[in-house]
């Protein structure tokens, strides 16, 4: 229970830091967004009409109240998920735009992250078990390579060969143009067909990290005395690897899973851009190129929220797999 309370405090603390950063960044940057906007529409060097400037400030919600009172007001809005109106998708609210995009990202990124964790960890066990053999060398070198390339670049190349040249998969989007989301078998198959390639590129680009981590943990654990004892007792190698070594070696990887989630989310944001997948990443990209600041900030907070909630879930999972934490000793 104390463990739970500690993790929960951390969750709230992280969230608070993210919200505060989100509040401070635009206000600490030089320049007034309203005058920037004026300058963009009217051309630089034009005299600025104070009435027009004020109108834009009201529209953008810029107030000249003290920083502290703005902060309280901002906190109140964030707690109610009120992020204002999107500039580019006016008159839709930021909350509406995020609500439309979020399920796609959770489905795509969530599924592919779990798949990549399972496959990567599994291959890591294999590589450690057969270390310095052929399998290990190939698998480890390959993951050193896949670990080092940008997700979005691999996605570009995959689109080119599999969709453009061979037409096996659709080029962009999450479902066929002209259809609208329904719960029919045809639509679900269409979504799977569209999502397969983005998911594949995320799995391949992120698998290497889990693999290398698991391999290192396994090799460390293989040297423990209890493993030697288990082998000496005459237990089957496969049994020792699975029940003695892997079970202990996976613990740091679960912590790693929680931590590395941020990286995976970042990588998949760019993958969404390549596939024009209607998720959060693509929405963020559009917000950035159209300078839609309220949308951008809202999306940032939602991404942070998802990542730290997933992190919290991984911490809870840790309690299930490691009894030492339950008894409050770790």
């Amino acid at each position, binding site marked *: 229970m104390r463990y739970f309370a500690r993790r929960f405090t951390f969750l709230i603390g992280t969230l608070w830091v993210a919200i505060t950063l989100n509040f401070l960044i635009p206000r600490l940057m030089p320049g007034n967004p309203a005058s920037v906007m004026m300058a963009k529409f009217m051309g630089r060097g034009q005299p600025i009409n104070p009435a027009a400037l004020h109108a834009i400030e009201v529209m953008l919600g810029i107030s000249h109240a003290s920083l502290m009172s703005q902060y309280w007001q901002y906190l109140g809005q964030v707690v109610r998920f009120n992020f204002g109106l999107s500039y580019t998708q006016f008159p839709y609210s930021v909350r509406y735009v995020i609500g439309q995009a979020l399920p796609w990202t959770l489905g795509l990124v969530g599924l592919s992250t779990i798949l990549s964790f399972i496959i990567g960890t599994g291959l890591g066990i294999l590589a450690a078990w057969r270390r310095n053999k052929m399998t290990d060398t190939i698998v480890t070198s390959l993951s050193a390579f896949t670990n080092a390339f940008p997700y979005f670049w691999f996605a570009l190349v995959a689109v080119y060969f599999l969709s453009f040249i061979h037409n096996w998969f659709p080029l962009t989007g999450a479902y066929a143009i002209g259809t609208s989301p329904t719960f029919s078998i045809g639509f679900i198959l269409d979504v799977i067909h569209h999502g397969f390639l983005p998911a594949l590129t995320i799995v391949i680009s992120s698998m290497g990290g889990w693999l290398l981590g698991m391999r290192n943990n396994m090799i460390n654990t293989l040297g423990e005395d209890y493993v030697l004892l288990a082998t000496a007792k005459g237990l089957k190698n496969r049994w020792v690897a699975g029940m003695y070594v892997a079970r202990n070696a996976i613990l740091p990887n679960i912590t790693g899973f929680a931590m590395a989630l941020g990286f995976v989310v970042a990588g998949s944001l760019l993958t969404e*851009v390549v596939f024009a997948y209607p998720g959060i990443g693509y929405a963020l990209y559009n917000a*950035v190129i159209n300078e839609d600041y309220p949308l*951008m900030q809202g999306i940032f907070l939602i991404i942070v929220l998802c990542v730290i909630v997933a992190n919290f879930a991984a911490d809870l999972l840790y309690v299930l797999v490691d009894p030492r934490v339950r008894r409050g000793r770790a």
Partner: protein
Amino acid sequence: MNTTTVQVSTNGSVTPTRPAWAEVWLMIIKTLWRNRKSRVGLILLAVFVFVACTGHLLAPYSVNDSSFATSAGPSARHWLGTTQAGQDVFSELLVGTASSIITSFSVGAIATILAMLIGITSGYVTGWLDDVLSFITNVFLVMPGLPLLIVLASYAPGKNLVLIIFIVGFTSWPWGARVLRSQVSTLRTRDFVIAARLAGDSSTRILVREILPNMLSLVIAGFLGSALFGLLTAVGLEFLGLGDPSQVSWGSMLYWAQNAGALMNGQWGWILAPGLCIAIFGMSLVLINFGFDEISNPRLRGDNE
């Protein structure tokens, strides 16, 4: 394993013999060279650094020369084709190597210095300062970096390489800080550190003379990791158009290639080449890091290597 000044104990940390700086470096280089993976990494890295230094001399054309046919595919005269503005892609690739590698190493350096300051302080002191620093480290570790960077970079006035380097550097230190903190907190209670403290050495002297040499391999491994992370992040930002598009680098090449719809025009060279360079450069860093893993953890050493 050869006997060297540093004896590495079974739990992956270092036993109390105090090595001299020069010997530490020598041992690191020797171990890296003995390991097949990190030797390949060192050679690859050397090639990239060479190209970075001489890229503008090696390039067949000037990157400012836009007199060629636009959006051409690979040919004998233009190995990787030309851009939509009529520049030679292969020349851009060679010249861009320098700014990409500078970005990568500068981010690595900034992140490593911050990680050392925060991680070592937090590991060496105890009490509230450690708690506060650890909390900050963990928060930034969990925080997804790229969305934060996107927000920062969109609000930042102007777009240039130095700015990208600084904001990426200032957000990529937490991993290193965490690793260094745990290492310092185990070294802090070792006999040789206690001996130095009893002898009246100052904290700074203990940190620099006793503790730092014993975790040099961790620091360098952290540097390589941050350099890779920094390159990938900077490339991602440049791809989104948040970098300086007029600066020739691997990331801005990908940005322009994507904007020009390079793949759909059959200009695969323009997309494939910068990405491959990023991946191979990154792989060289990962391979060198394998060697460092084996220095700080002898169990990872293979029997036949």
